[in-house]
């Protein structure tokens, strides 16, 4: 178990190194100059040069890469070209929106998916199953930005139950949660649909296993067998999906953040890319990559917790 964790850590470090190079190159190759973007159409060439010098953009690429990576290693993400504030600070601010949103959406999707998946698996092939699975197909097929728009139309404009967007900050937790509700629902529903399907098919696979029949021979009812012996065995594929979804929710909410004008990480990247705020893009992408790799790592550890057979191997 420990050696497995160690090996994983080494490959994690290697992955991060490769990722940093890829991120840096990709971002640097993008045409467009942050200084010129800042100064607009009225600027003179010497002004642009002055700003480039001020931002350190006139240094060679290799030097800037090394400086950036060095900074990352010491926990310094650099200073934004446009905002002129430390990237770490900006990311921290945005995380206070993105992280709760992701967790909220994840919780919602899990809460929806579990009963739905269990129910459908238990009633496999009957009307209830067909109805739930039909609903999940629809949930997957509806683009979430479209769904978000419908939510806003209904709940913000027509009913007035929620604001149309924005985020008031955590000073008033209730208002903050309220502001995150519609976005979380918009994000959660497709995810829940996917999760419910995965759970159902994993459960059905497990239900075909011999040990479920053994459990039934002990005198457990169909549902008891499903609940006590099926769920945990079906958890591995479900965990994989949950892990992937969390990573997706953290960064992939860009469009939803746009629709609800939330000051989240996704929109930060979006703005930073269009402003060619290279350092912000690089650092935030790196951070996200790190988060995903970490989540994958944790998911793997969780596998071992769920399935004792995986504790020894590898």
């Amino acid at each position: 178990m420990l050696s497995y964790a160690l090996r994983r850590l080494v490959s994690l470090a290697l992955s991060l190194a490769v990722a940093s190079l890829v991120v840096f190159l990709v971002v640097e190759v993008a045409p467009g100059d942050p200084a010129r973007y800042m100064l607009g159409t009225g600027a003179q060439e010497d002004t642009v040069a002055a700003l480039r010098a001020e931002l350190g953009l006139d240094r060679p690429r290799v030097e800037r890469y090394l400086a950036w990576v060095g900074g990352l290693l010491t926990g310094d993400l650099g200073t934004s070209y446009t905002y002129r504030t430390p990237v770490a600070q900006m990311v921290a601010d945005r995380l206070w929106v993105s992280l709760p949103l992701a967790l909220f959406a994840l919780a919602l999707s899990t809460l929806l998916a579990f009963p739905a998946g269990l129910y459908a698996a238990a009633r496999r092939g009957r009307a209830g199953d067909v109805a739930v699975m039909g609903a999940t197909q629809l949930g997957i097929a509806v683009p979430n930005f479209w769904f978000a728009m419908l939510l806003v139309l209904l709940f913000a404009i027509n009913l007035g139950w929620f604001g149309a967007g924005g985020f008031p900050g955590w000073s008033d937790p209730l208002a903050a949660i309220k502001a995150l509700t519609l976005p979380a629902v918009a994000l959660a529903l497709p995810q829940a649909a996917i999760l419910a399907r995965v759970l159902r098919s994993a459960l059905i696979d497990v239900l075909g296993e011999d040990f479920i029949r053994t459990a039934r021979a002990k005198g457990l009812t169909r549902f008891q067998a499903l609940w006590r012996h099926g769920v945990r065995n079906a958890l591995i594929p479900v965990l994989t999906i949950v892990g992937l979804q969390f990573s997706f929710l953290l960064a992939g909410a860009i469009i939803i953040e746009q629709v609800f004008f939330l000051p989240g990480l996704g929109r930060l990247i979006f703005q930073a890319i269009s402003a060619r705020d290279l350092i912000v893009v690089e650092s935030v992408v790196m951070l996200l990559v790190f988060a995903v790799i970490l989540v994958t790592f944790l998911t793997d550890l969780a596998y071992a917790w769920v399935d004792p057979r995986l504790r020894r191997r590898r």
Partner: protein
Amino acid sequence: MTRRLLPGAVLSALVILAALVSFVWTPGDVASVEVAQRLQPPSAAHWLGTDQLGRDILSMLMVGARTSIAVALLAVGIGIGAGVPLGLAAAALHGSWLDEVIMRGNDLIFAFPALVIAILITAIAGPGAVNAIVAIGIFNVPVFARLSRGAALSLWSRDFVLAARLAGKGKPRISAEHILPNLANLLIVQGTIQFSLGILAEAGLSYVGLGAQPPVPSWGRMLAEAQTLVAIAPHVALMPGLAIVLTVLGLNLLGDGLRDALDPRLRDLRT
């Protein structure tokens, strides 16, 4: 054809048919802008009405289907074309450094936030259908690599592969002759699923302006451009949304149906 395959197959066939027909005929001209004709509700002349520039929505949808299908299909093609050989190689050389590199590379691609990378790609190369294909395709590669590696690994431990090795066949040849054909069902099923995801992804990219560029119609962009019109001309926003939903739904149902029809384990259970 099984009962469950039918709705999905019919829906998908309709969309593909619409796309094909659009090559030779559309009810209206998608390039003609007639501002005076804009935002007309559905009528005999324009079955689904006209959009904000007075173009026939049905025609736009038909040609847009072409875009969606082409982008998604090519993206899946990239995924299969690159992912399957990688997965097969990794499985054939299971435990070697190549396997490790391929799998870690896969993890790494998975670790990048997809939409962000798509945005970056279009920032480098400019937006457009080709770049959307590349962006979506890249993220299909690990999906197929992983899938084919996993399935191939279990096939490699099967006796018939052992028999082929005893027959003196090399790893590449066994991969091509025995492993790949046995993966076909799996790939078809996953292919349909990725295809539908590709259509959603293309719509999402076009929605933020990174997909196919005007004047080429695209469902996602139609949806984005019509969003503010919901209150004035709901049909303009509704139609592309419905087109996406129905297409993705159709493909997903088709994928499910195919899984049932092709997976012998499930087939046996049903009889």
